[in-house]
């Protein structure tokens, strides 16, 4: 489950983010991570495996890592059960 920003950052770095984890924060633009379509695809699979099913159409609408994290928290299974 992706609850903390740190966990998301670890995933982003594992997927090939162009920045080291210490330079990635809520305000970091997703474009700065320079993930290609394969890396984004694998990231979405990782998130789905954590129970966060993120429609890929939403991804290009997100601007920052914080936006992505917010969406992950919103769409997490325990949020859906509330």
């Amino acid at each position: 489950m992706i609850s903390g920003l740190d966990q998301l950052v670890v995933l982003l770095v594992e997927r090939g983010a162009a920045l080291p984890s210490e330079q990635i924060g809520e305000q970091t633009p997703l474009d700065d991570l320079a993930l290609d379509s394969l890396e984004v695809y694998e990231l979405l699979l990782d998130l789905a495996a954590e129970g966060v099913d993120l429609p890929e159409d939403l991804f290009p609408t997100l601007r920052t890592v914080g936006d992505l994290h917010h969406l992950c928290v919103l769409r997490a299974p325990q949020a859906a059960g509330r």
Partner: protein
Amino acid sequence: MTHELTAVRAPALEGRTVRLRPIRPNDLDWLYDLSIGGATGWRWRFRGVTPEPSRFSELLHQGVLVQHVVERPGRGPIGLVVAYQADLRNRHAHLGALFDPELHRLPCTVEAVALFVDHLFMLWDLRKVYVEAPEFNLGQFASALGSYLEEEARLREHEFHDGQWWDQVTAALHRSTWDAVRSRLLPSRDQGDAAASPPG
């Protein structure tokens, strides 16, 4: 003589976000635009040359083993995946993919290619699938190089574009690599397999 029910996988041409289907006659106009158009035409097989529209259908199928239109359900076609220059004696083929430039960075394009690769390895006993591209196209699948794709050949300064000569790179996706990553890249496919298997 009795025959036991054997669990075999059927080719799956539908994933979470895309499905692959045959080319229909009414696809030719948009495929022509996509193949020749400014945003994609210079990268694709015709490299800026404009074939006669009346010959386009014939050219589209020339040297092709199998190709499918990529469609997003409810949203229409977004691209084409193609296997060409198949050498079934030596068990390899080339893979190409062309997508609407507005969508080519979306992950659904990866799922389309993964479904198509799975289809190729399932229906033909290929050892490997080649991806051939001039260096200026490599950025489109940079992360696959060195992870899933292995560079096997490089023709130095093979192709001219925009004032400079570019290497032509041939990379291979080996069946063994695909077997190792398939269930990770197509998890919905494996769920489908489980559902399709006969009980017991």
